[in-house]
């Protein structure tokens, strides 16, 4: 585990060296522009739009980082041939994968925390104070981080057995499908054969449900998120990431690296 920690720390350092955190400047500019502009061009949605825009930006920026960097975690090491030097040391392949995953999640956590801080500062600027109900914004940010961790795990899995381009397509595709899992569950079973109905039902539970993490509307309107949902989503992410990372480790351990 210590070895995985070393890989994680180096992955974080590499991301910082690659200027991944520069997106924070873009986020800051976006939020400042929104804070100034919204009051001028709309009515009564200053707070709502700041929260919606802030959370959407955190989500989109995080998505881009998690998909592109998540896929590059393994492929870049292979292309640069640094993976061979690393695996020649006493580092197991699963430890390498786990370290890479943890490193990128740490990068995302730092990035997301910084953006959340920026969002709260803009909220204070707009509202002149923070209320207890604004804590839901932090819950929404936490849910975004959980979602990103799951996406990193999926990107890592796909990058273990296919090309980076296909891995990106698979990850983005699964993310979009994961947003409509509820729709899959609501398909009219009357028009389907029993076997098909059972299949879609099972499929809807097997696929990652990204809609679980979407509390943006609640955050925008200052509605509290139940503590049970926070716990359930945390457990869901831990369990799902464990499944995906185990599958990734299994695939990667059998992969011929010659």
């Amino acid at each position, binding site marked *: 585990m210590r070895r995985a920690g070393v890989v994680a720390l180096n992955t974080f350092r590499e991301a910082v060296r690659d200027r991944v955190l520069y997106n924070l400047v873009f986020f800051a500019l976006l939020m400042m522009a929104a804070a100034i502009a*919204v009051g001028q*061009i*709309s*009515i*009564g*949605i200053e707070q*709502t*739009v700041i929260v*919606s*825009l802030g*959370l*959407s930006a955190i*989500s989109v920026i995080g998505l881009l980082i998690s998909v592109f960097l998540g896929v590059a975690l393994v492929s870049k090491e292979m292309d640069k041939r640094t993976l061979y030097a690393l695996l020649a040391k006493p580092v197991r392949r699963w430890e390498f994968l786990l370290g890479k995953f943890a490193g990128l999640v740490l990068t995302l956590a730092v990035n997301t925390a910084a953006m959340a801080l920026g969002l709260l500062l803009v909220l204070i600027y707009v509202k002149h104070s923070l209320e207890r109900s604004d804590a839901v914004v932090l819950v929404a940010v936490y849910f975004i981080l959980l979602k990103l961790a799951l996406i990193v795990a999926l990107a890592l899995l796909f990058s273990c057995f296919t090309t980076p381009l296909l891995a990106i397509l698979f990850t983005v595709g699964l993310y*979009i499908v994961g*947003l*409509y899992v509820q*729709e899959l569950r609501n398909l009219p079973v009357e028009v389907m054969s029993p076997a098909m109905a059972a299949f879609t039902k099972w499929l809807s539970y097997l696929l990652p449900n*990204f*809609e679980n993490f*979407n509390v*943006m*509307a609640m955050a*925008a*309107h200052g*509605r509290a998120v139940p503590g049970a949902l926070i716990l359930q989503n945390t457990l869901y992410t831990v369990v799902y990431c464990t499944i995906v990372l185990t599958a990734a480790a299994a695939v990667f351990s059998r992969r011929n690296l010659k």
Partner: protein
Amino acid sequence: MKSQNPIAWVLLLVLPLGFAGVWRLQHGIDAQRASLSQERDDVLLRSGKLVKVMSLEYAPLLADIYWTRVVQYYGNKHVRGQANLELLWPLLDITTTLDPNLLISYRFGAMFLSQAAPAGAGRPDLAVQLIQRGIQANPDYWRLYEDLGFVYYFDLKNYQKASEAFLEGSKRPNAQLWMKIMAAKVAAEGESFETSAFLWKDIYESTPDPSVKKNALLHLQLLKVKEDCRQLDLLADEYAKRFGKRPARMSEMVQAGLLRGIPGDPLGFAYIFGEDGKAELNLDSPLLEQQLLLERFK
């Protein structure tokens, strides 16, 4: 001595001159295009449900964008004095489908829809539909019942329905006491100066938006004018009883002791008697234009 790069000198010359030329050309192109194209308003996707599905997980942000479009669309039409607001409903429909909890879109949207042109779209029926949709999604928010009562009272003149809306709203959490009183008063009296003034005053005091505040103030001023003119006409009737003819000027009523001084409208312009002998706004009063505009579209 090191030789200077001639291309650098050319670039220094070309950059400002070139961009100055581009600037001028673009102005010319803009002018050409403005004369060619007509204003085009369009909502390409009219299905709120489809837009919601396509928005992935960003429906709340998209709702804010659509709401801003509503405000901009209404504002632009309002500034140009255009009465055609046919896209207002589809835009509000999409906004509220994307975010059913965006309360401001029901409240202001209903106001934009219900008021007679040019202040609104003149569609109180759609305003009622919008508020009822808002109530369905936010049943505990008493202000929506107030808005519903407002539309029934002012625009549809359905005092029974207005009273029911105020009464229903008074039962919601945090509803103000006057909702219950208003329900009884509207049911008993229908339209009255006090009720109308109270409702507009509440809008004036509770809205955060300057343009809505201005609109509410205008209605309050015009209500005051209406009430003042009614009172002055009663006094003119009294004058006619005493002197056998209606007064031609306010000063005659002052001389007769019926008025202490020449009364003015909320902007300070003295009221006058029109050709029909009825009290009315001074021709110099800016309120006259607003009054005529509102009456024209009633």
